């Protein structure tokens, strides 16, 4: 039995000439927080809509919790908030949840439980038209939790939240992943995904261009050093057995080596009479990776 809660095979969605999702191969493992990154228009939301059965694929197929997307069996085990939460503005937060709980077949007690979990109990009786954007987002997450789902799909859940609210939401999402629940978090915010996700997939032009853990995506760390004379330093460092590559970057050297080799490299240079004024770890941020793979010609990772 596969341990993937989401598995797509050449999933494709075309709107006329426009290919929104292009033969997407996505695998989300059970119990992980999967960060789904991509620039605006990359196909993230269309993919999520297909996984929920809201949009029919043009080609390819997908299995969600082992079932076809949108099937009653699958939907009973999925909680989702795609884009802005859909709310009846004239109903209170509590009544909005009651309506959804009625359709979902969720126990009525779940309404108060998720209101409490998302910190909305105090305003639950107010019409949602009076809610701030952040409160609406939290109510959307509360709605997604009504079924106590095995799989939670959240599309930009921190939209409209202030920094404190965003930090709170990130911690909340991490807590939701405990107990074996799988969370798919779609976002364009690197920091959010980096801090919360176990694995990350980056989509560009409808296709997955890179996937892995945050550490894998950021790649091996390297060293950057400033030394004089630079050419001699480069020659000497390149000859060291712990160094696999050296490149000059302006007045600096980028050295491909484990960070633990820094002391040895420094010692070798100083012993050779080369002045080392700076040596430190250099590592790509997730943002660097994102920009690299989402720019034209990227995606080789």
């Amino acid at each position, binding site marked *: 039995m596969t341990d993937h809660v989401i598995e797509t095979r050449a999933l494709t969605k075309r709107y006329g000439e426009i290919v929104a999702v292009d033969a997407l191969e996505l695998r989300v493992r059970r119990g992980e927080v999967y960060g789904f990154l991509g620039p605006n228009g990359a196909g993230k939301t269309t993919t999520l809509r297909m996984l929920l059965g809201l949009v029919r694929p043009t080609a390819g197929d997908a299995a969600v919790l082992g079932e076809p997307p949108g099937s009653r069996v699958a939907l009973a085990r999925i909680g989702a908030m795609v884009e802005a939460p859909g709310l009846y503005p004239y109903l209170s937060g509590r009544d909005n949840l009651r309506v*959804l709980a009625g359709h979902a077949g969720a126990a009525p007690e779940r309404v108060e439980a998720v209101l409490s979990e998302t910190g909305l109990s105090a305003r639950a009786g107010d019409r949602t038209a009076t809610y701030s954007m952040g409160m609406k987002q939290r109510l959307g997450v509360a709605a997604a939790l009504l079924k106590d789902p095995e799989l939670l799909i959240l599309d930009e859940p921190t939209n409209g939240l202030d920094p404190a609210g965003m930090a709170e939401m990130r911690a909340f999402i991490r807590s939701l992943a405990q107990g074996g629940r799988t969370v798919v978090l779609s976002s364009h915010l690197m920091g959010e995904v980096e801090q919360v996700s176990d694995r990350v997939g980056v989509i560009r032009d409808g296709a997955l261009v890179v996937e892995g853990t945050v550490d894998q995506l950021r790649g091996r760390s390297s060293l950057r050093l400033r030394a004089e004379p630079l050419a001699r330093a480069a020659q000497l460092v390149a000859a060291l057995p712990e160094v696999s590559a050296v490149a000059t970057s302006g007045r600096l050297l980028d050295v491909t080596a484990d960070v633990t080799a820094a002391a040895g490299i420094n010692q070798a240079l100083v012993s050779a009479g080369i002045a080392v004024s700076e040596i430190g770890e250099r590592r790509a941020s997730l943002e660097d990776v994102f920009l690299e793979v989402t720019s034209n010609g990227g995606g080789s990772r």
Partner: protein
Amino acid sequence: MTRQLSSELLVLRKRAATWILLGIWTLLGVFFAYVVPYALDPEDGTGGIRPFLPESLAGTLLAGFPFFGGVFALMLGVFALGSEYGWDTLKALFTQRPGRLRVFAGKLAALGIVLVPFVLALFAAGAVASVVIAQIEGAPVNWPSAWLLVRAIAAGWLILAVWATLGVLLGVLTRGTSLAIGVGILYALVIEGLLSAFADSVGALEPLTQGFLRANGYSLAATLGATVDSIESSGPGSYAGPLVSSVQALAVLVAFVAAFAALSGYLLRRRDVE
């Protein structure tokens, strides 16, 4: 299904538009069926003051359903589904457990239930108005039979249900409310209204107009006491006939409800929710 129905009743019950439409429909229904014609000239019609008395309650009120009531029911139907697109709530509902058709069935059932107070409120208000007129005129207060009242209420509900399901279909087709209401009223006034008017002089149009909502609605109303006079003087909703049999009217109206509901359900099930 019971919980889905109660969810949808909550959505309709707490919506101000439902109560506003109910209030306006009831007030204007009584106003145009009793207050205006009685105030203008109570003896003018073919039946004298008889249409204003309690004994004529069913026919007098039903004459206002096929067009005037239809427009209100159309709006209610459009709001029931069309608004869901604007609020993005359809997406939330369709990702719950029951599946699209069950959600739709819950919405239709709730809409059907909400139409009941629309009929009952007008009949209650009409009853009060007719008693007041009877008191003013010193006429006896004779009520129609309970059986006639039950059939009239059922017929009123069916006529409203046809227009409400047309509203649902237009709301789904246009994925909104404004265009749906515009198209619905345009259909009622221009398509049905003008063609029905031309049918008098262009005989070939007659079979077509006999399939219209207003022809069958008025025909059903006529079998329950609505006078030809009141049908022909219904302003923009007037219909000059010919009327069809009650069996045909009933069958056509039921078929329209089924067709509008089936087509709406098909579209909801097949189309992407963006």
